[in-house]
């Protein structure tokens, strides 16, 4: 088992004819993901490395049976593309695009919440990888193998760093889910941790958070009340100054809110062990799984 993406995934990529869209759609296909369609309005009828291109997401659902969408269009078109995918009946939307205006994200989030069947992961995220099954996004899949550790993270490269440390110690992953670094992520830590809790293959959950917002604190409460599997956490940004956006739009300490220390303390208070470095986090995982 795994979460969100697997061999049943039938992916449509919006923005597939762009340089990045073509590159990553092709990578995902080469990994073994069923990439059944791409969408670029006005370019319907073309194909990209054997992937048929349609004018609308609805057409890709009707004609190619797409059930998952990956959003790869530029920021100014991304909110529209996400809403189009939801309207076409897509149930899992993975938005890679970085730089979407926050008010667009707010409108999209509020609209999608009205349909509990639709799940958005991202935006500004590296996507989802279920090793050996499917890769949707830009995670460098070759570093990871199938296994029992579920990873959920706000950051891309930090996920690879922690994942690689786990891999060096012999661990594989059920799934790796990047929820993204924006202020209004479509899926939260809680949403993904709930999936891992219910996934029989996942035996340990690693969550990687960072400064800004209160998603880690909320996850701490949720874990204490609902999660029986061990959870190990890492938080980035202990040395980040107040009031500066550290790369990710959502990574900002405002006054005393959103600090790494407060997040680590909230998690530890609920029995979640927090590594001070990516290496220590992998070591904690190793200790718990007894390898």
């Amino acid at each position, binding site marked *: 088992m795994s979460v969100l993406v697997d061999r049943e995934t039938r992916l449509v990529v919006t923005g597939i004819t762009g340089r990045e869209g073509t590159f990553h759609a092709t990578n995902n296909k080469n990994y073994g993901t069923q990439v059944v369609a791409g969408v670029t309005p006005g370019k319907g009828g073309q194909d990209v490395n054997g992937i048929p291109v349609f004018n609308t997401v609805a057409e890709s659902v009707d004609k190619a049976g797409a059930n998952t969408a990956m959003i790869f269009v530029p920021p100014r078109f991304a909110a529209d593309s996400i809403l189009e995918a939801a309207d076409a009946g897509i149930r899992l939307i993975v938005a890679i695009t970085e730089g*979407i205006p926050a008010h667009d994200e*707010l*409108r999209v*989030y509020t609209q999608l919440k009205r349909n509990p069947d639709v799940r958005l992961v991202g935006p500004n995220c590296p996507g989802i990888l279920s090793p050996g099954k499917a890769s949707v996004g*830009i995670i460098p899949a070759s570093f990871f193998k199938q296994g029992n550790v579920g990873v959920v993270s706000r*950051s891309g*490269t930090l996920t690879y760093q922690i994942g690689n440390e786990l891999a060096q110690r012999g661990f594989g992953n059920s799934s790796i889910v990047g929820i993204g670094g924006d202020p209004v992520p479509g899926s939260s830590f809680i949403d993904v941790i709930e999936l891992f809790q219910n996934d029989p293959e996942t035996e340990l959950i690693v969550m990687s958070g960072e400064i800004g917002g209160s998603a880690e604190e909320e996850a701490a409460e949720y874990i204490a009340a609902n999660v029986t599997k061990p959870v190990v956490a890492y938080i980035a940004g202990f040395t980040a100054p107040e009031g500066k956006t550290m790369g990710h739009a959502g990574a900002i300490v405002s006054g005393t809110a959103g600090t790494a220390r407060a997040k680590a303390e909230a998690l530890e208070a609920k029995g979640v062990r927090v590594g001070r470095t990516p290496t220590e986090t992998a070591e904690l995982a190793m200790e718990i799984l007894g390898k």
Partner: protein
Amino acid sequence: MDLLEYQGKQLFARHGIPVPTGKPAKTVEDAVAAADEIGYPCVVKAQVLIGGRGKAGGVKLAKDRAEATQYATDILGMDIKGFTVHEVWIEGASQIAEEYYASIVFDRAAKAPLVMLSTQGGMDIEEVAEKTPEALARLHVDPLLGFQDFHGRKLAFAAGIPADLIRPVGAMLSKLYATFVAEEAMLIEVNPLIITADRDVVALDAKVTLDGNSLYRHPQNAELRDPSAEDPQEQMAHERGLTYVKLDGDIGILGNGAGLVMSTLDVVGLAGGSAANFLDAGGGSKSDAIVSAVEVILSDPKVRAVLFNIFGGITRCDEVAKGLIEAYGIINPTVPFVVRLDGTNDVEGRKLLADANLPNVATATTMNEAAEKVVALAKTGVAA
């Protein structure tokens, strides 16, 4: 992006929100001319992106031309908590009967705009919220519905606003909300929102933060960015399209991906060092971006050693190595470098570096080892 007070007021004025008449000035002559035009008494206000201006002596009431000259001379060039005052705002003195507080915050946790109102304006609102939470009326607005008139009344009654002001204050909140949405703000705060002797509602202050990601839709706001207020390295990085934040330490940092760079700063801190900057070279960085980044990092005279921490995903380690080699050809750095390359094409990248045999460049295989090496080098200044 944070706006100066007067920029916020000009933004308010465009949306029909009453603000005192005023003019910005960068020199004493311009300030006095503005004061003459506006009339006395008038207020001379330092324009800096930091709170506590009044306590620092950056806000003064001038009753005549001599005082206006004196205060403009004192305030221009003044240092307020590390921010130099380059500009003052001269505005007509207001007749204040009441000082209220109003704000709209992009509430990430609730995923909705949060509108707040209190009759206890003019003071630290966090203190009000802590000591007398009932004095701060709060309401979340459904972003797809928008702010309704009844929301305004609900907040005004909850805050204990006098009956004759319920509608005018509600109308003010409605205009602030419209501004928040139209300009795509992350924060709008008015403290104080005043009631004049004539019972008019006026925004006497304006604290506005705009969403940097939406500026392409607001060219007029994009022009408000004030390069003179920025640190020289941050300005240089901005012009080159790099994500850079200046910090206080002496170890220059370059990494790929915001989370990994933040983590690198922490690991350097744990090793006993202190980072000079945050620099995310981004995904898929090519060698020219690396050259550009090295130039920005080294333009900070405090930097005594530099750490490259790369975990290659889309970014290829050989491209990073090429960039560093090119940078050495162009700028001949005098401080030591520690380079950690892991991930995509790491073997090729390390070989390129070994073959180039750059002076003062050490390599490391793990993040922790790299951090320890660079901290030691920042102290001694020589690579092993």
